[in-house]
């Protein structure tokens, strides 16, 4: 890459697609981790919406505006550690046009974990959310026969596979929540250390706040 493209004046306002996908993923994660029931049509539907958000953001990372592209925040663990060290020692780290190196690692970790949650979720899904909703409606109307066809007697190998995938799904989902808490903590620490509001550019930007 030659020069470092990510050093420069920070964004005053993230572009609408970054903002929408960011808050969309936040809502989706909270909804599916804490509110909806696993396996329900709603849970699966929200999971598919999460997949859409992730795909859209990855597409934007390839063709989007300069500061939203992957090339603006390459994963660089050593730079991330140096950045964290400068926060600890109190020396002012440089301003980055996009995510700072530590933030970039966080972003990729969140996306990777989300992808794992979605992938294992899809492996456990027996039908599309639309069909699941139909089945639920049939069960709700009193006909429980679909439950029998949906859960046919399974062989032992199939059962252990389902257990394994389900376990990974749960562990990854909890990791996702942990990372989200770390992410919020990092934003607070970073805002204090860099003496600038990192949250405003993700909502309406500094301009919107001043008016």
């Amino acid at each position: 890459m030659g020069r470092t493209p990510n050093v420069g004046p920070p964004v005053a306002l993230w572009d609408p697609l970054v903002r929408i996908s960011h808050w969309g993923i936040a809502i989706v994660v909270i909804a599916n981790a804490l509110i909806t029931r696993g396996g329900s049509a709603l849970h699966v539907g929200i999971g598919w919406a999460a997949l859409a958000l992730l795909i859209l953001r990855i597409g934007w990372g390839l063709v989007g505006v300069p500061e939203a592209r992957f090339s603006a925040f390459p994963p660089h663990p050593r730079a991330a550690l140096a950045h964290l060290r400068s926060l600890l020692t109190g020396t002012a780290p440089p301003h980055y046009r996009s995510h700072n190196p530590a933030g970039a690692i966080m972003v990729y970790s969140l996306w990777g974990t989300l992808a794992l949650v979605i992938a294992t979720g899809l492996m456990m899904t027996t039908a599309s959310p639309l069909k699941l909703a139909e089945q639920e409606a049939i069960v709700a109307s009193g006909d429980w026969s679909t439950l029998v066809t949906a859960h046919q007697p399974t062989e032992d190998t199939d059962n252990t596979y389902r257990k394994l995938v389900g376990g990974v799904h749960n562990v990854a989902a909890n990791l996702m929540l942990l990372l989200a808490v770390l992410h919020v903590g990092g934003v607070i620490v970073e805002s204090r250390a860099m003496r600038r509001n990192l949250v405003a550019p993700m909502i309406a930007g500094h301009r919107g706040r001043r008016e």
Partner: protein
Amino acid sequence: MKSFTTRQGRQSTALAIFLLVQTVAAVFFVGDSVGDLLSDGTGAHSMFEVLVAVALVLGIGFGLIGLRRTLITMRAQEQTIAAASGDLARVIDDQFGAWGLTPAERDVGFLALKGLDVAEIAKLREAAAGTVRAQLTHIYAKAGVSGRAQFAAFFVEDLLAAPLPAATQAGRLASIETRR
């Protein structure tokens, strides 16, 4: 100018939301089609679904590129406007100097160009309304304009490159001749 850029901002936000809806629709459609494909096998129906899926995905890709173009054009326009407004301020300052306005008159002139009335200027400058009115009269006299409207038009006129409609042109030209 500001409302122009905020309107574009709203348009790009709307486009981003539309792209999200389109992507959600694509994921649900493709997921449902894959389910059908796995259970029913291939056929004319599934071939059609593949075609629709490809169209949806292409639409999203072009939408993303379009959104990027809109956002980058918007940023370039914001920069141009910022540069132009800086230039206009310099042009006004130079012209005030050429007319030989005093520092107080320059301040009052700027405020008048910004659209403030006598009472507002007086309040801002903590001066009597009469003083401001007298300063404005001096400014108009030095600039050789008949009043406030002509004073403002002096600077706006150069920015309007478009020719006047033929019917009004003669009258306008006459008034400009008397002014100069």
